[in-house]
């Protein structure tokens, strides 16, 4: 798994490439939290277009970030998830908390639309 971090307005964008499982989630969690602290910001978007595999560990990691962010009044969203990743989100009913958008622009619109 490879991670790339970008900042747009007050949103940290994390592009995930490769496999998300319990093993790689440790990196995903650690690096996301570090980047969020260092780069500042309020919201998080996970760009998942290049995720080649994800199991339930991915749900745990995303919900974990949601819990942290939400405490600070921020929003979190997922963008570009493929059908398989989407299916796993649906099973977990995660989408009531963390919406999933087909592209980055829609995700940005949603997270930046949160109250100040």
């Amino acid at each position, binding site marked *: 798994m490879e991670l790339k971090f970008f900042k747009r307005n007050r949103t940290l964008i994390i592009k995930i490439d490769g496999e998300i*499982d*319990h*093993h790689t989630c440790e990196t995903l969690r650690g690096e996301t939290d570090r980047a969020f602290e260092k780069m500042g910001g309020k919201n998080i978007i996970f760009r998942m277009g290049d995720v080649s*595999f994800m*199991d*339930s560990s991915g749900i745990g990691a995303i*919900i974990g970030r949601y819990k942290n962010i939400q405490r600070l009044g921020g929003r979190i969203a997922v963008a570009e998830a493929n059908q398989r990743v989407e299916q796993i989100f649906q099973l*977990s009913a995660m989408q009531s908390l963390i919406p999933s958008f087909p592209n980055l622009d829609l995700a940005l619109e949603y997270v930046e639309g949160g109250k100040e």
Partner: protein
Amino acid sequence: MEYQNAFRVFFAAKSQNEALARIMTAAFLSQYDPTLSEITDVKTAVSEAVTNAIIHGYEEKTGEVELFCGYKDGQVYIEVADQGKGIADINQAREPLYTSKPELERSGMGFTIMETFMEGIRVESRQGEGTRIYMVKTLTTE
């Protein structure tokens, strides 16, 4: 049961072996011309069961995980076993969103995913002795 082909592997209960278990499973399956979606279904179920053995069975301490893959008449048979802690209440464990390790950010969706992506799943577990998961999937054949 007489399988047409099968392997049984024992590996160290280390998280980097989750990917190894998936690759082994996919390589075995690919002999039978499955669809990409069938491969992913089985890989995902194996990933869940192996992860559970490592983090729940052995609580991330030393141990050995067993993975069996067998094929017979269009069906894939999977077993994942550990000799770890065991499950006290299997019904509760299989409930969606139930996890005994929220502090590790587990989602409690492992069993639900195994049930969704495979056809049958059976759980054998004894406290202090370990857990064995059996799963089956029928491959579509052209």
